[in-house]
């Protein structure tokens, strides 16, 4: 064989040998490009993050780690905030010796509709919670109260809870399993952890359906014991529930020609002095606060001539509210209704810099704590 022919043949062999290598390199490059398209590696779960370029617009489920808390319980708790299932059922609520029964419907983003069946004084009343509005239809008054709040309020509350858990001020643990209305539920305990009680003081116990992230039983606790409990006696989850988004709108409420729509506007302000400036009153503050409670926010509430200041105090996930406003008219000739003791709502009067201020307390503190606080305003 001539040398020139051998050289030419070796060139062809080299070229043929390079061809498969080139093809492999091209295939690898294409696969890598496809896997990392949009910055997300394929074959892995999409991050739950609200981003315009991504298909899943659900908020990112931030991993929260905290000493003393159970990561699985934390994950399940925060999943309930982003639950997207529809459900309906019958719920029973007990506070002290009082019981109420409601037909409850739930939907995405915390949508909730509560239709009262009993007791008779609430029968026919409807509460609707939507992402930025709370509607309360009171059947006997033929009125619908509308309270609006800025969008994202629910997310802000969730962020505050995350911070409490992360800082170790709130402990979230899984304490067991139990069936509620035929659904297997995980029991999650939320406890405030003050320095004096390392084991924590129970504030909530939640029975959560892990499959659908729906709370089926909600127990509210105080240091003195259980305060209230709401639980489903029957529930249908999913499309079979027959719940639609319309059930959480104003249009779904009973239409009545005499219906009055009352809108309360509450605006969160940065500080108490700012609220005082807006409302034109000098706020009286309690010198005594029950253990663990601190100011959690100040709002100005406007409706008609009334401009008042609402101060919310929190300890972990428990709250109470003080509402203060100036008394516009004194010595009204209209006879006042008799004052009835109501554990949850108390109204006190105090003089302040030439004005008379009405202080309304709403909460679930013990009577002794209420009394001590009432005497401490200054």
């Amino acid at each position: 064989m001539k040398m020139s022919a051998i050289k030419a043949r070796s060139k062809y062999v080299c070229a043929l040998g390079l061809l498969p290598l080139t093809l492999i390199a091209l295939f690898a490059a294409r696969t890598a490009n496809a896997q990392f398209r949009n910055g997300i590696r394929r074959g892995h779960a999409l991050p739950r993050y609200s981003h315009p370029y991504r298909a899943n617009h659900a908020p990112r489920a931030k991993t929260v780690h905290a000493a003393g808390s159970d990561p699985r319980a934390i994950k399940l708790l925060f999943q309930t905030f982003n639950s997207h299932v529809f459900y309906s059922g019958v719920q029973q609520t007990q506070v002290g010796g009082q019981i109420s029964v409601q037909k409850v419907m739930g939907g995405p983003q915390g949508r909730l509709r509560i239709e009262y069946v009993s007791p008779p004084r609430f029968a026919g009343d409807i509460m609707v919670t939507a992402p930025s509005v709370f509607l309360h239809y009171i059947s006997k008054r033929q009125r619908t109260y509308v309270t609006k709040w800025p969008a994202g309020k629910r997310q802000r509350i969730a962020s505050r809870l995350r911070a409490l858990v992360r800082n170790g001020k709130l402990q979230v643990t899984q304490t067991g399993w139990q069936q509620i209305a035929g659904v297997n539920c995980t029991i999650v305990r939320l406890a405030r952890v003050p320095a004096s009680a390392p084991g924590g003081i129970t504030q909530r116990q939640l029975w959560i359906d892990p499959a659908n992230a729906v709370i089926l039983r909600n127990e509210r606790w105080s240091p003195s014991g259980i305060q209230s409990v709401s639980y489903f006696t029957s529930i249908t989850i999913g499309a079979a529930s027959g719940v639609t988004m319309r059930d959480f709108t104003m249009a779904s409420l009973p239409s009545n020609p005499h219906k009055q729509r009352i809108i309360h506007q509450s605006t969160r302000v940065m500080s108490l002095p700012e609220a005082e400036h807006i409302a034109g009153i000098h706020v009286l503050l309690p010198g005594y606060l029950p253990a663990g409670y601190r100011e959690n926010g100040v709002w100005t509430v406007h409706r008609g001539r009334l401009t008042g200041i609402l101060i919310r105090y929190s300890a972990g996930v428990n709250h109470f509210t003080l509402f203060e406003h100036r008394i516009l008219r004194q010595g009204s000739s209209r006879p006042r209704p008799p004052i009835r003791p109501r554990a949850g709502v108390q109204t006190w009067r105090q003089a302040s810099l030439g004005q008379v201020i009405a202080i309304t307390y709403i909460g679930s503190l013990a009577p002794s704590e209420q009394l001590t606080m009432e005497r401490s305003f200054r």
Partner: protein
Amino acid sequence: MNILNTKPIANCNNAETLLPQFVDGELSARDAWQLEKHLANCRDCSLKVEQLKLTIDLLHDTARLDTNDNFMAKLHARLDDIDASASDTRTNTPRPSLREIITGYTRVLHVPGVPIGVAIGAVAVLMVALIPGLKTTPATQTTAKPDSHISTVVEAQLAQTAADPLGDAAADQLVVHPDSAVQDSYNP
């Protein structure tokens, strides 16, 4: 052409008037010769000649659309109809106004028009005022009677609880409205 016979093509305006005839070959030999001399020196006019020739060629290449035999007859008939209806509209008397109608009726009834109008208006106002069904009631309206302050703050509190993912508005409702009838302890 007479113009060309008397004087040569001095400017483009004169040449432009002769271009269609030139392209169609209808100019005399002398006029064509003079125009050709102008085109040889004028680029704009020679371009115009080229464009004109191209346009004519395109029109020649376009397929002809044949119409029915009676197309023209139908077209003329329709045009005649349009013309006739237009003339009818012009000849019709205008619609009488409301005032003319009322005046006509009052003449027939032998009563003056103004009192009749006032009476009709008064009856309409009375009907709206006295018949409840005719009143327009909005589905929702702002409250006329001020609500108690406690109701305001109770609703604000319920709303706060409802916005809380761990809140229990049903329990709060029992707390703020206990077993006794809902009455405000203070109502200024």
